[in-house]
């Protein structure tokens, strides 16, 4: 770090200006990629750019954004959660059964599952375990529990949840407002509070934090508990939209959430994450995967490829910008 800062002071002001521009461009990249996808949609089908069009296209954006935020908390502690998808599915199954029929037990189960996440954080830290393997095992556990809770697709979302998710505010579609809200709340909590800095620091330089007297066990527990909390919110939001559940409903969210964090400018190591970027990344992926692509002459076979291609293009753009940053 010191070598880098000395390096910057030695540079001329013109070079510093170029560097700042490159950094700004890098920060704006998630928003630019979203704008690009929107522009492509507007060009292919101008009628999609409307209140109704956005409500349809961004239908699943809220649960994807929440799952991406959950993954982001885990990644900011230098870990990876491969179980978030099946966890979202498990929460969905509980929401469509227990939470409707016996709300108190339902709430207890969901709170308990957040507790399990916190315990996993503690276990990973105390035994120094690779999070990839532990969460891989947990993905089986959540899937198994989901099937036990709801052996056949079905169940029904609680009425209050349906009411929230079908809310239609004037002028701006609900998914956009919700995404903004999620992004801003998490941005404030993680980027603007002092404990948020500690949490990110636990991924940036754990040794330094430990010497400064902070408990790494506590930061890991908090990060995993937050991931659990947002996983629960994601599963509930998903059921509020689909109205019924299925044990496999969340399986795709593991890979989507990782891709969303990276698209949003996050990095796997070093606690470098961006909540607003992650939400924008999730919106981009939700648009790219939306059923409306079908009406835009993109055959359904190639919709998964569209996700992959967007990831590759954005990352290629980032490399070009980073070269300037040197």
């Amino acid at each position, binding site marked *: 770090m010191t070598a880098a800062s000395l390096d910057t002071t030695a540079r001329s002001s013109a070079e510093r200006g170029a560097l700042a521009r490159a950094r700004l461009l890098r920060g704006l990249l998630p928003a630019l990629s979203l704008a690009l996808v929107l522009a492509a949609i507007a060009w292919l089908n101008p009628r999609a750019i409307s209140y109704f069009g956005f409500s349809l296209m961004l239908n699943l954006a809220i649960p994807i954004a929440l799952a991406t935020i959950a993954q982001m908390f885990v990644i900011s502690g230098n870990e990876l959660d491969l179980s978030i998808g099946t966890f979202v599915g498990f929460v969905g199954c509980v929401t469509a059964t227990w939470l409707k029929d016996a709300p108190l037990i339902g709430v207890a189960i969901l709170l308990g599952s957040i507790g399990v996440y916190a315990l996993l954080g503690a276990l990973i830290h105390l035994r120094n375990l690779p999070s990839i393997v532990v969460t891989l*095992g947990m993905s*089986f556990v959540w899937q198994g529990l989901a099937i036990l809770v709801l052996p056949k697709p079905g169940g029904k979302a609680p009425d209050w949840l349906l009411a929230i998710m079908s809310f239609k505010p004037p002028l701006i579609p609900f998914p956009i407002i919700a995404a903004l809200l999620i992004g801003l709340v998490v941005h404030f909590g993680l980027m603007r509070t002092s404990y948020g800095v500690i949490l990110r620091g636990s991924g940036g330089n754990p040794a330094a934090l430990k010497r400064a007297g902070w408990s790494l066990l506590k930061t890991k527990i908090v990060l995993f508990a937050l991931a659990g909390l947002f996983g629960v919110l994601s599963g509930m939001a998903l059921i509020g939209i689909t109205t019924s559940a299925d044990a496999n409903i969340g399986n795709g969210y593991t890979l989507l959430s990782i891709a969303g964090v990276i698209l949003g400018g996050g990095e796997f190591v070093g606690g470098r994450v961006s909540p607003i970027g992650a939400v924008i990344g999730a919106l981009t992926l939700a648009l790219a995967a939306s059923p409306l692509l079908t009406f835009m002459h993109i055959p359904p076979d190639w919709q*998964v490829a569209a996700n992959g291609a967007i*990831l590759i293009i954005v990352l290629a753009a980032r490399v070009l910008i980073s070269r300037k940053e040197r």
Partner: protein
Amino acid sequence: MILVRSLAGKPWVWSFLGALVVWLATIAFTGGYGAGGMVTAALSLAVFTVIVGVGQMFVITLGPGNVDLSLPANIGLASAVAMKVMAGSDSMIVVGLLAALACGAAIGAVNYLLIWALRIPPIIATLSASFIIQSIDISYGRGLQIKPPPGFADFTNWQILGIPVLAVLTVLFTIGAAIALQRMIYGRSVLAIGQNIRAAWLAGVNVGRIRFLTYTLSGTLGGIDGALLAGYFRGANVDIGNEYLLASIAVVVIGGTSVAGGKANVPGVWGAALFLVLLLTMLNTFGVSAGVRLLLTGLIIVGVITAAGGEKAVR
């Protein structure tokens, strides 16, 4: 006594021990019925996990962050390519296998190209690649209902005295992989890169070339696995490789290979694959439901890794 102690020091012993315990528990439950048949079935199914597991092991040994997430999509596409090229005719078996091999190798090479050109973490590179491969597979394999040539289907199911021939060939292959890992320049280079990539580079290891070879190797093994699976299960489909993402990573780790890289273990891959297959057989024999089976599988994976403990940090 010395033998016991030296065996206990080897991490792969535990996975075989686990497999043995699970097997004994099952035949105790059935009263000895079907003990031999169970071993035969376990060997034939473990083969597919071992082949991709060895590829994944070389990739994971390259160091933190190295993992091949494109294996399931790769297996799916290669199975479709193999079936289409063979077109149900015995004379095309070798050509079809070569086509699946080439398809897998190309996917591996593209994976490394993405990692190298975009300088992105392998997880994201192989993930983006797998999205695209999956689409190609859906588009290419649409409505594909070609049966494997009878000769090929018989070969993948061929048994001599209850021992699947494919398992014997795979044992020979894993012995080759172990020699490549411990005794050849390629394997030593992979281990060196996993232990310290910068030190390996300073010592003159051609880091880029070794990493390229490793990802291509993993892709190639995925391709072969796809062709063999299509033969064994008598047909290709898009989802044929789905379970091998988790399985390939799980057998590597349970088998005693370090997730932090630089330490690999070939026999452990066999032990862990047999353990996982026998575990599923045991739970099926006990007659538990699909939910309980998944739940117990997950808990056992978490339990095993917790008991084995992680590596102490080097710093």
